[in-house]
Each structure stands twice: as structure tokens, then as C-alpha cells.
């Protein structure tokens, strides 16, 4: 089966004698342990059947003056496409977690501002691997062993200590920084922009704040290098994305460097690509104004009290977003489609019980590098996100 615990979407998971093989701890808990407590179909706290819950949801959406559709990062591409159609019909806002996650990087890749590659290519050809502001030990546990540092690839078959060069850039000595021993380098970074400057100076042969001359030398040796950027990089850049994109493109004049965002929900990139195909933007989009703006991100909309209704699919904003956002979210009418009884589901006007994508319902998802992967569910649920969203769309 395919594990949907993180955006690695590992395809080699087996279930043998009720044991889950090959999945990391995060994936195992996602597959077996984290499914309780299940949510029930509820309307204003009263338990109802699924038809009644969907009808109430349609009524609320019809009466909404300004609605937002949010979440969708853990569901399938099929469900995301229907959600986009619902947003278009309602002329509402649509957003997912990527507005505060790695949406900007995915957008740059989709708009071809920076070169990117697939993780299979990384395994086969990459020499220098830079992990910048990301700690896959927590976010993508099998990233190093499955795709980047440890596996032997077609052109890199001599193992990690000879055929790979690992660079870890982080503010602290993270778990993967401990692995940077032989043929590797750990840079404790204080200012990401200064580090970019150091790289650029190193290309000119000058020394700057950070010692990166060796990394640049190694990069020039190879015909394929990869940079994995995480949230640490995004927030370290402080909004200066162009500076970073120019740096990646500038680097490519000397040594090929491919950027792959790493560390997010299972199908966050899927949502970005779905919306990009439909409207040409990746997130925080308003169908009324037909444009994307930072003011249209879910937390900004809620904070500025721009919406009165929210359709939330497969995420728990009350628990995960800052207090001033979640406090205001309580005043918004919420329709939650979720298999799990989250804090948001408990506080919602309408809750519709759904199925876990990838475990109980099939479909397609997109891995962090843009590869489409068909899910292989182990159970078959009748009511899943696609069914519920389709009925809501028909009702509207």
C-alpha cells in the first residue's frame, strides 16, 4: 500500500500477519494508531445521518455571504478538483496550508522560475545534497534512506560515503546534522541571506561570513546537485524569495542545482498543482476577484473577519493555528469534513464523517517532487471526501 503519513508517499509498505512492514514510526501511527476517535455526522451538536448532514451543509453554504474552503492537503486530487469547482460556484475564497507552508517554493517550480527534479533522479544522479532549514528526521523520516543520501543509484553506486556529499544547514545541530560526518558538512546558520551571499562570494573565489568554499568546489565536480528547502529556509528568507531564486539560478551557471521543497502534508503539492491547472495560482485564491493575494490566506481572512462560513476538509485549524486566529474562527460557521473527531470538528456547526485517503479510500496524490502516485487503500469506505464533496456540488 501507499503510506499517506507525509509527502514521501512511500510505496513499499506491506502488511503481513497484522504487522506493518517498512513504514517509519510516523507512517505506522498514521496507518494504525491515529484513526481514533472517529467523528460522527452532526448538525449543531445533534447526531444525524449523512444525508441530513450534507443537506445542512448545502443550506449553510447557500446562505453564506462570503465563504472560504480550506484544508484539502490530506485528501486526494479528485476531491481537490471538486472542491475547486465548489469554490468557483460559490465565488468564494480557497486556500490550503501551503499559504504558511512551502507554497511559494511550489509556485516557483510550477511557474518554472527555478529548476526542479524528481526524487528518483536525485537517487540516481545527485552528488551534493543540501538540506536547508529542514529536519527530515521529524518531517519525512525516510527521506534520506529512501531517496537521497543512502540509496545507491544508477550513476551513484558506490555508497553514501564516496558518492554523496551531504550538507546540512540549520539553526541547531539537528538529528540529521549528526549524520554529517565523512564527506559532509554542517553549517550552523544565523542569517540565511548572509549564507546566500557567502555562496555567491565563494563562486567568485572570495571568503565571506560562512565557509562554503568546499561545498562549491564539490558542487562544481558533479553534474547533478540537489537542494531540499524546508520551512526554516522559507522563514529565514524573510520574504526575499527572489533573492533565493536568483541564487539558485546563478548557481546553475556553474553547477547544476535542482530545488525540491521538502516537509509538508501528503498532498499539499497536489492542491497547489490542481489549483494551478484551473486558475494559474497555487493557493490563497479569491474566485470573486479572480486573483491570489496574501490577504486571501485563510488565517488573514479569519483574523480580519472577512468570511462568515468555512468549509474545512481534513485539517484542524482550531488546534493548529495561532490563538488569535482560532478564537475568531469560533465565530465563523464551520462545516467540517473529516474522518477524525478533531477540535475543529467538535466545534463545528456541521460535521460530516469521511474516510482516510489512502487507507480507506483510493485516488491519486502528488509527492513532494511532483510525481503522481495512485493510492492503494486497504479498506473500502462508501463515504469518502469525493462522495461528500460531489453531493455538496450537486446540491449547490
Amino acid at each position, binding site marked *: 500500500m501507499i503510506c499517506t503519513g507525509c509527502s514521501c508517499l512511500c510505496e513499499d509498505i506491506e502488511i503481513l500477519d497484522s504487522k*506493518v*512492514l*517498512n513504514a*517509519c*514510526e510516523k507512517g505506522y501511527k498514521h496507518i494504525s494508531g491515529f484513526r481514533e476517535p472517529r467523528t460522527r455526522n452532526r448538525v449543531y451538536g445533534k447526531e444525524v445521518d449523512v444525508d441530513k448532514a450534507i443537506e445542512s451543509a448545502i443550506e449553510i453554504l447557500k446562505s453564506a455571504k462570503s465563504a472560504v474552503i480550506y484544508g484539502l492537503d490530506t485528501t486526494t486530487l479528485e476531491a481537490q478538483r471538486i472542491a475547486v469547482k465548489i469554490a468557483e460556484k460559490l465565488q468564494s475564497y480557497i486556500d490550503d496550508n501551503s499559504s504558511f507552508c512551502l507554497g511559494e517554493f511550489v509556485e516557483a517550480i510550477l511557474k518554472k522560475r527555478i529548476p526542479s527534479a524528481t526524487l528518483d533522479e536525485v537517487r540516481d544522479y545527485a552528488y551534493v545534497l543540501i538540506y536547508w532549514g529542514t529536519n527530515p*528526521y521529524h518531517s519525512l523520516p525516510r527521506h534520506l534512506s529512501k531517496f537521497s543520501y*543512502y*540509496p545507491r543509484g544508477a550513476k551513484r553506486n558506490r555508497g553514501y560515503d564516496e558518492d554523496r556529499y551531504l550538507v546540512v544547514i540549520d539553526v541547531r545541530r539537528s538529528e540529521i546534522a*549528526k*549524520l554529517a560526518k565523512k564527506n559532509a558538512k554542517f553549517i550552523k546558520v544565523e542569517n540565511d541571506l548572509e549564507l546566500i551571499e557567502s555562496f555567491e562570494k565563494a563562486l567568485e573565489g572570495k571568503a565571506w561570513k560562512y565557509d562554503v568554499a568546499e561545498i562549491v568546489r564539490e558542487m562544481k565536480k558533479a553534474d547533478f546537485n540537489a537542494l531540499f528547502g524546508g520551512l526554516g529556509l522559507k522563514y529565514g528568507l524573510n520574504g526575499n524569495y527572489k533573492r533565493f531564486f536568483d541564487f539558485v539560478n546563478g548557481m546553475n551557471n556553474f553547477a547544476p542545482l535542482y530545488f525540491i521543497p521538502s516537509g509538508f502534508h501528503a498532498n499539499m503539492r497536489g492542491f497547489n498543482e490542481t489549483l494551478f491547472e484551473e486558475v494559474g495560482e497555487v493557493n490563497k485564491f479569491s474566485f470573486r476577484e479572480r486573483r491570489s493575494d496574501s490577504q486571501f490566506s485563510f488565517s488573514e481572512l479569519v483574523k480580519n473577519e472577512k468570511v462568515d462560513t468555512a468549509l474545512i476538509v481534513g485539517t484542524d485549524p482550531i488546534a493548529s493555528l495561532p490563538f488569535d486566529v482560532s478564537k475568531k474562527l469560533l465565530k465563523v460557521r464551520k462545516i467540517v469534513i473529516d474522518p477524525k473527531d478533531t477540535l475543529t470538528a467538535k466545534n463545528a456547526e456541521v460535521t460530516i464523517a469521511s474516510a482516510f485517503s489512502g487507507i480507506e479510500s483510493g485516488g491519486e496524490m502528488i509527492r513532494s517532487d511532483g510525481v503522481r502516485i495512485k493510492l492503494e487503500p486497504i479498506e473500502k469506505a462508501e463515504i469518502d471526501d469525493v462522495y461528500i464533496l460531489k453531493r455538496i456540488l450537486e446540491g449547490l
Partner: protein
Amino acid sequence: MPLTPMDIYKLLPKTNCKKCGEQTCMSFAFKLLNREKKLEDCKPLFEEKKYEVQLKKLQEILKPLEKATETGLIVRSELCNGCGNCIVACPVHVERDPQGAGIGKGPRIKDPIYRIENGKLVIVNMHLCRRYGKNRILCVVCRENCPTDAISFLEG
């Protein structure tokens, strides 16, 4: 901290009484660590009352030895997060399973050394390990690539 023969020697009677069959207490400490001898072979330690405190300490520090496999491997599964670095880095896996563990996937051979079960590392077949048997070599690749030090060996 790994256990050394010196740690064991310090707690032994240090009389070189030879009752265990060894010439010195130091050599007994070495064999104890290699699990060629048992603590019970040291007779004075159990018979004489003055060694009571030392005996208790010895039994305590030798406890991990019982958990270790024949190759001296100890896996602390509470620290493991199932990243699988050890499985993919293992030279034996690469040689025997080039299309499975060798390229980062879960092992495809029937009896791999390690496997991830329910998110934790388990030892399946120690006999394949390079540390096993007469012509063993002290390979530590899996330990070196564990980000949480969940894998350790008796010698450190």
C-alpha cells in the same frame, strides 16, 4: 557509555584466585564481556559477604549483555523512529538485495538482518551480519548512521 572490561574488573575481587579457570581477574573481565564466561563462575563473589555490594553493581551493569545478540548488538527501540538508514546503509543488504534495500526500498530478500516492523527496527536474521561467526569483522555502519543512537554495540 559503552561498557569496558575495566569497568567490570574494578568490581571484581582482584585477587587472581584462579577459581574461575582464568589466570587473572582482568582476563575473566574480558571473557565476561565477550560472554564466554558467566558471572557465576567467579565463586568468591557469591560466597564471601564482603563482595555483596560489588556483586549487585556487577549484576546491574551486566544486564544489557543479556539483551544483546550474538554479535553484540543492542537495539533500543524506544529511541528508534524507523527511518531505515541502517537497513539501506548495511553493506550486506546492498550486496544481497541490490534492487530492494540497496536502492532505498524495504528489504525484498526473505531473511534480511534488519526490518522495520510497526515503525520500529527489529532484528530478523543475525547470521547474515558481518559481525557474526568466526571470520567476523567489527562493522559499525548501522550504528554510525543512526540519528538517535538507538543502535549500539557492546564494545561501544
